[in-house]
């Protein structure tokens, strides 16, 4: 029989509850779809750019940032496995007077055409009167070719001059043409390889060799054979590796953001649960009649789940549309990495992916169906005779829950924390969070009954009635408070995690920025650097007490892994000035290194261990002395004493300097004098306070989306309380009428509703805070550790959480009263009459 009007029609009859559930699903789907669309667009653009640059290359030889011996080019080009080889020197060049950089590729145009033709430069006609384009411009040492995006971003065009910084000096180049094969969104420059080697102090060095293999040579075999010929720190990789590394790097951040979006969807699911649970109670006589005339339990269950699924479907369809709009907005405001900095400089284009879109619609359906599942099951289990009995609403509201199952889930969450990450994703952590939430909800009715038992048995009548209702019908607390518990748990967990993280970052900044001034010639590993002469001049500036120079390098330790940062700076033998974690293991004769926490997770290095570090093209045995906390890099960092580094590599250059002032010296005067030691705009000075402020601003921006999702989740939870109480109040009009007959005033009934709302929300808030505390610990100790490879110290924002909790309870009480106001009208008194 077609019962669609009976079941689906009820959705229209309870418009408010349906609307709240629909809105929650829309929000959850929209946020998840938006985050996914943004990141996919960014990754796609990033990958497209990489693939264009890789061109026909089957393999790529990569090494440290400073490059490797160019003699390897001839060695590899002569190999029978290799058909063509194209040498590359890649430099991130700093623009004079700006913090912006430009990726400059030094290429051999003759070799380039056979391997990566997309990077071929197109000379333009010079305005000096030449008849046509200068075909030899690609070989000129003072000519540079910019992609369209680079020209637009830098505000230059063909025949303009472009000033780049090398060391602390200016380098002026003529823009001689463009790169027609490079995608419109990619900022890139190309020069002759010898010119780049000359100008950027890379003589005799290459940073990459692109290889096209001979026909029928399997890439894996060639990779192994060629790798054996290469020195330490120089690796053979597939071009896909870089794209994979970027995807891996950003994956954890993406997954965490998507998980946050899932919070809204989860809360939406709980709103569906609340609405369906109440609806089932109100319609229990209707279901009893249908069962009595022949509707099976299974059909009743299926129809009720379908109601939830329909809300989810509608929410999913609207959600994906809104999600694409949101993605467009996020790309415009925050960029392709949503503020995290993984894909800076890209201008991704939004793409519609039908498969993924359909998946998110399905998620909406699942959220709705899942929310309706439990009430549907309970409704199908009740016998018609029992359902027709008056006074049985208490049993229909779920009784005392499943405390045993809840306790089991809570215990399982602890076990899940020990599960190692899968492909860098902390699945065990997410499973623990799911178990904590589900377990918390399962024990909620028992907790509500326990709290009711503790309440005083005497006192004003409204309070006694509210407490009696909580104790006798704790399932009601679940219905009203499920959404509150979920949203409070997740919001408070995030608040604890973010507060802990921010506090730890703040303290860490205090430890890693002990000097009075910081000076640099450009961001790490960029074309700006401090040569020996500049270092001497800096040290001689009046007012400078002590200078600690730092050299930054990038090392390749393993194929498929992103480069590891090498930081060479003065470090004491016990590393006491570093933000150490754990114990120090003093070593023997080998140089000591200090590794970041990520090195432990990614490479398995441990204090006391002896490892080989690829320096100057050879493996150098070093001793791991200790572990330090590094919030700047997820891919790992190794710190070594500068003197040891220089002794091992002969590299005299530095990238930045930490300046401690002499007694009585004025910071601003010394800063001016330091800046004057280089060309105008070549050196930048920063004060620790400024660096700290900028860093925390970046931190807050990174979590901006998180804060937004938290607020959404809490609002949805609160809306759920209001919707639940509105539905309950409507169902309780005869009860209110009877109480009015007995002599309760409208105000007393209002107080009763307020206290019921406060109790239900209070139970939800208390459960949410407890679950949230546990989830916060999981986020800190498991999710963050496995996703980003850093630890943090626990910091619970007690004040703000207390304020949040009490405010939420007050709002819930208000929502309950406002929702029940309709039910307290005069004619509600007459609702006790059967024939009214």
């Amino acid at each position, binding site marked *: 029989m077609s019962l669609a009007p009976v079941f689906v029609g009820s959705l229209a009859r309870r418009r408010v509850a349906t609307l709240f559930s629909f809105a929650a699903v829309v929000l959850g789907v929209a946020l998840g779809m938006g985050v996914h669309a943004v990141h996919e667009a960014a990754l796609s653009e990033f990958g497209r750019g990489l693939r264009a640059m890789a061109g026909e290359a089957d393999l790529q030889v990569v090494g440290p940032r400073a490059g490797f011996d160019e003699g390897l080019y001839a060695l590899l080009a002569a190999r029978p496995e290799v058909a063509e080889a194209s040498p590359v020197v890649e430099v991130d060049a700093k623009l004079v007077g700006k913090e912006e950089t430009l990726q400059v590729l030094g290429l051999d145009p003759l070799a380039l055409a056979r391997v990566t033709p997309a990077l071929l430069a197109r000379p333009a006609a010079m305005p000096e009167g030449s008849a046509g384009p200068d075909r030899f411009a690609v070989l000129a040492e003072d000519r540079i070719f910019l992609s369209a995006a680079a020209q637009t971003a830098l505000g230059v065009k063909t025949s303009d001059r472009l000033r780049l910084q090398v060391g602390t000096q200016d380098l002026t180049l003529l823009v001689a043409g463009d790169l027609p094969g490079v995608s419109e969104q990619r900022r890139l420059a190309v020069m002759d390889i010898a010119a780049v080697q000359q100008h950027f102090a890379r003589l005799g060095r290459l940073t990459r060799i692109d290889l096209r293999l001979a026909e029928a040579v399997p890439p894996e075999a060639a990779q192994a054979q060629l790798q054996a010929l290469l020195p330490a720190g120089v690796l053979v990789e597939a071009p896909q590796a870089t794209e994979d590394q970027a995807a891996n790097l950003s994956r954890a951040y993406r997954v965490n953001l998507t998980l946050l979006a899932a919070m809204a969807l989860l809360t939406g699911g709980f709103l569906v649960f609340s609405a369906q649970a109440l609806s089932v109670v109100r319609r229990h006589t209707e279901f009893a009649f249908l069962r009595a005339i022949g509707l099976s339990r299974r059909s009743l269950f299926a129809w009720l789940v379908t109601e939830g699924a329909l809300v989810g479907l509608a929410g999913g369809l609207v959600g994906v549309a809104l999600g694409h709009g949101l993605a467009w907005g996020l790309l415009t405001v925050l960029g392709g990495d949503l503020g995290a900095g993984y894909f800076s400089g890209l201008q991704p284009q939004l793409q519609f992916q039908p498969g993924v879109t359909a998946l998110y619609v399905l998620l909406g359906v699942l959220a709705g169906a899942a929310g309706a599942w439990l009430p549907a099951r309970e409704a199908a289990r009740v016998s018609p005779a029992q359902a027709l009995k008056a*006074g*049985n609403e*208490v049993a229909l509201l779920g009784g005392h829950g499943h405390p045993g199952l809840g306790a089991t889930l809570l215990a399982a969450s602890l076990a899940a924390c020990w599960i190692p990450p899968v492909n860098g994703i902390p699945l065990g952590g997410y499973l623990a969070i799911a178990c904590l939430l589900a377990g918390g909800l399962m024990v909620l009715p028992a907790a509500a009954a326990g709290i009711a038992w503790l309440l005083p048995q005497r006192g004003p*009548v409204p309070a006694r009635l509210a407490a009696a209702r909580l104790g006798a019908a704790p399932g009601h607390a679940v219905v009203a408070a499920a959404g509150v518990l979920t949203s409070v748990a997740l919001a408070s967990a995030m608040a604890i995690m973010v507060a802990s993280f921010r506090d730890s970052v703040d303290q860490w900044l205090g430890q890693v920025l002990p000097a009075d001034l910081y000076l640099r010639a450009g961001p790490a590993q960029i074309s700006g650097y401090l040569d020996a002469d500049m270092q001497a001049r800096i040290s001689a500036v009046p007012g400078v007490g002590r200078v600690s120079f730092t050299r930054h390098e990038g090392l390749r330790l393993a194929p498929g892994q992103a480069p590891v940062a090498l930081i060479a700076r003065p470090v004491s033998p016990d590393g006491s000035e570093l933000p150490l974690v754990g114990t120090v293991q003093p070593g023997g004769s080998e140089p000591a290194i200090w590794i970041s926490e990520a090195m432990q997770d990614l490479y398995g290095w441990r204090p006391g261990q002896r490892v080989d570090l690829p320096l100057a093209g050879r493996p150098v045995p070093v001793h791991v002395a200790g572990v330090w906390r590094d919030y700047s890099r997820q891919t790992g960092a190794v710190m070594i004493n500068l003197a040891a580094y220089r002794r091992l590599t002969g590299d005299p250059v530095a990238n930045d300097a930490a300046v401690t002032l002499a007694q009585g010296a004025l910071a601003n005067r010394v800063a001016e004098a330091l800046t004057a030691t280089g060309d105008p705009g070549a050196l930048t000075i920063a004060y620790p306070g400024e660096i700290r402020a900028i860093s925390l601003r970046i931190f807050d921006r990174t979590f901006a989306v998180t804060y937004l999702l938290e607020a959404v989740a809490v609002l949805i939870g609160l809306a759920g309380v209001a919707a639940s109480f509105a539905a309950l109040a409507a169902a309780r009009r*005869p009860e209110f009428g009877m109480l009015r007959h*007995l*002599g309760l005033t409208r105000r007393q009934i209002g107080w009763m509703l307020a206290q019921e709302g406060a109790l239900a929300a209070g139970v939800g808030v208390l459960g949410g805070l407890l679950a949230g505390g546990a989830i916060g610990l999981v986020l800190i100790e498991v999710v963050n550790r496995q996703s980003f490879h850093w630890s943090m110290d626990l910091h619970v924002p007690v004040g703000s959480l207390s304020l949040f909790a009490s405010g939420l309870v007050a709002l819930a009480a208000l929502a309950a009263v406002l929702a029940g106001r309709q039910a307290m009208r005069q004619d509600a008194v007459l609702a006790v009459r059967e024939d009214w």
Partner: protein
Amino acid sequence: MLDIENLSRSFNGRAVLRGISLRLKPGEYVAITGESGVGKSTLLNLIAGLDRPDSGRLALDGTDYADLNEDALTRLRRDRLGFVFQAFHILPHLSLLQNVALPLWLKGRQGAAADRPAQQLLEAVGLGDRAGSWPRELSGGEMQRVAIARALVHGPRLVLADEPTGNLDPANGAKVLTLLGERIRGAGAIGILVTHSREAAAGADRVLRLTSEGLIG
């Protein structure tokens, strides 16, 4: 004493009640019958202080209450009226003892001061050994007995019963009516039973019939 003088009430220009007068003494138990739509519920609402007459006088033990404000009417119901409904309206989340004690809670009584009279009334209606039970464990007849106990626990002067046997089978209905009449008379209260059923009305001391011309009987 319940004094009703020339009570009138109209809705949308249509006169539902016109010139209703009635005087009842304590211990008197009357039934009001009439056809559907004749105004029985309207009359009951006026007597209960849930509605205001267009004209006329209502007084209980000398207190005129036709013109009292809402708070005063609420206090009146709390202190001096008791109700028995067709649908019982027993609170599912209170035990039987608590349901019966509820009117005493409203009058500020706590603990034994409320529980003892409630227990006594439960015993009087034959449910004394089930004080701790929940409404869902009761039959319809038992629930109506709880409702009768609740209606009388605070010593009301006037008890209003609106179709109290409407949801009960004839056997249980008869028992409930007998109990209701006994308890009302025993308490010295005034009882008004509104019903369609002649059999139900037969248990009252007097049967009044409400017609468009007024109360007859």
